[in-house]
C-alpha cells in the first residue's frame, strides 16, 4: 500500500484529549467528528488538518483515554497515514483496527516538518523523502491485512477471519 502527501507535524505526548476532546464523544459520524479533529491544539487545527494526508508526531502519540474517535476523526478528516516516533498502545490499536495505516519510526520523524512531502510503502517498509529512502519495520502481515480491508469491522462485514 503506497501513501503519499505532505505531513502535518505535532510534538511529543499529544493526548487523545488534544486529538479529540471528550465533549464530542457522542458524535458517531466520522465526517462530523472530523470537524473537531485536533481541536485541542486550537480552533484552527481541524481546518488546517484537511490539507495534510499525513499526520506526524513525536513520542507517545495518542496517550490517555481509549477513545477511538481520536483515530476515526482523523480518518474522517482525510488522514491516510500516521507516523510517530512512538505510539501509545490504545491509539495504535485504534488506528490499525479502524484501517488507518501507521508507521512507528523515529528516523522518519527526524526528517519531517509541516509541509514535507513523504511517500511510504507501509507493507514494503520503505519511505521516500526527497531523494532519500528510509527503511522501517513494517507491521506483521495479519495487521496489514486488517488495514487493507479497512479495519476489524470491515473485515467482519466481508466475512473474513483474522
Amino acid at each position, binding site marked *: 500500500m503506497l501513501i503519499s502527501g505532505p505531513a502535518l507535524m505535532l510534538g511529543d505526548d499529544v*493526548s487523545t*484529549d488534544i486529538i479529540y476532546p471528550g465533549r464530542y464523544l*457522542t458524535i458517531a459520524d466520522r465526517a462530523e467528528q472530523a470537524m473537531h479533529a485536533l481541536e485541542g491544539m486550537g480552533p484552527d487545527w481541524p481546518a488546517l488538518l484537511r490539507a495534510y494526508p499525513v499526520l506526524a508526531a513525536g513520542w507517545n502519540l495518542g496517550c490517555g483515554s481509549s477513545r*477511538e474517535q481520536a483515530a476515526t476523526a482523523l480518518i474522517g478528516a482525510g488522514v491516510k497515514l500516521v507516523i510517530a516516533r*512512538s505510539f501509545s498502545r490504545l491509539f495504535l490499536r485504534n488506528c490499525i483496527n479502524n484501517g488507518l495505516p501507521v508507521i512507528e519510526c523515529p528516523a522518519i520523524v527526524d526528517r519531517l516538518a509541516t509541509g514535507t512531502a513523504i511517500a511510504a510503502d507501509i507493507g514494503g517498509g520503505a519511505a521516500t523523502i526527497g531523494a532519500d529512502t528510509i527503511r522501517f519495520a513494517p507491521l506483521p502481515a495479519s495487521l496489514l491485512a486488517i488495514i487493507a480491508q479497512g479495519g*476489524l*469491522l470491515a473485515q467482519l462485514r466481508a466475512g473474513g477471519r483474522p
Partner: protein
Amino acid sequence: MSAQTMAEKILSRAAGHPVTAGEFIEVRPDRCFTVDDTIGLIMKYHAEAGIDRLTHPERLGIFCDHYAPADSREHASDHSAGRAYARLHGLKDFFEVGTGISHQICIDRGLARPGELMFNSDSHTTTIGAVGCFGTGLGAAETAYVWATGRIWLKTPPTIRIELTGALRPGVDAKDACLALLRDHGARLATYRAVEFHGPAVPHLDLASRMTLCNMGVELGAKAAMFPVDQITIAHFAQLGINIDLESGRPDRDAAYERCVTLDLSGLRPLAARPHTVDNIAAVDTILGIRIDQAFLGSCTNGRIEDFRAAAAILAGRRVAEGVRMIVTPASALVLEQAMAEGLIQTMTRAGCIITTPGCGACAGLHLGVLGDGEVCISSSSRNFQGRMGNPTASIYLAAPATVAASAVAGYIIDPSDLR
C-alpha cells in the same frame, strides 16, 4: 516450556497455547465489558456489520459510569439504548447509573480474578491488575469485534519488574509512589509493556494502594499492571466467598523481565503532577501557594474508602476555603455507603464539600465539575492533559487525596503536613 511472566502465563491460557513476549497472538478473553461512552458506537458497528448475535453474552457487560446520571439527552439515550441492548442479547451484567466506576465494581464484586484476561473499553482497566488479573483497555471497534466473535489479536508484551522497597511514611500515599515513578522514569517507561510489582514493600500495600498503582500503570504507558497473588489477594476473595487459582495469578520464579526498576517508598514526600502532562512532577512543598478554584476527590485512581478517610482526616473541623469548591465523587455505591457508615460524608459536607453520585465524575470532563475558563483544579484523578476536565484553558494538578483536601482548605496548593 520456559518460565513465564504473569503476562505470558495469563495470555498463554487465553490463547490456548504457550506464548512468549513479542508474539502476536489471538486470545479469547474471560470477560469483555464496555462503559457507557462506547456502547453507542458498538451498537452502530454491529448494525453496520450485520451482527445480530453475540458470541458469549455471559462474558459481556455494560457499566453506566462516565456520565451517570446523564447530563444531556444524547448521553441519556446511550444509557437507554445500552439497557435495551443488554436485554436483547442477554448480557450477563448491566450496572446501572449510580453503581459506580467499572474498575471499582470489578474489584468490589469479584468480577476481576487472578489469572484471567479482561477487556473493557476504558484505558484504566489496568486497575484490576491489583488482584492478579490481566486487565487492559480496548477501543470501540475492537470491543464490538470481541462481542461479535469472542476473540481478538494481541501482542504479548515484555514485562518490566518494579521493585518496591521501604514503607510509606504517614501522610504519604500510594498516589505519591505513582507520581514518583512518573518523575523518575517519565510517561513512556512501560509503553507496550506489562508491569509487575514486586519487592519487600508489597505485603504492606493494601488492595486500595495496589489499585492506585495499577491504575496509574497506564499513565506509564503500560498495557497491564499487576500484583502477583499473595495473602492480601487471598483475603479479598475469601471475604467474597470466591475460590481462586493461586498459581495462575503469579509469575514463574525464573521468568524473564525486560527491565527492573526500583522505588524506595520510605524516601517519598507528597508530590504533584503539574499541567499538562502526568510526568511533569514537583514536590508539593516546591509549588506551595498556587491558588486553586476547584478540588476534586474521586475517580478510579483515588475514589475509594481509604482515600475518603485520608481526606476526611484533613477536613474534620475545618472548612473549604472561600471561593474554592471541593467536589467529592465516590468510586462506587459501596464506597458511598461505607463512607456514610463511618461518618466521613458528614465530616466532608460540614467542611463544605459537594458530594455527587458515584461514578467517574469530573475526571472525564463531561459533567459534575467541568472547569471554567482559566481555572485551576487540584485533583486526585490520574490525568491532567490539556482539556481533560472539559476546558482547554484550565489547569489541572494531580495529587494524593490528603494533598487535595489540604489544598481545598488552604485555597492554594499545600503539603498536608504544613496545614495549620
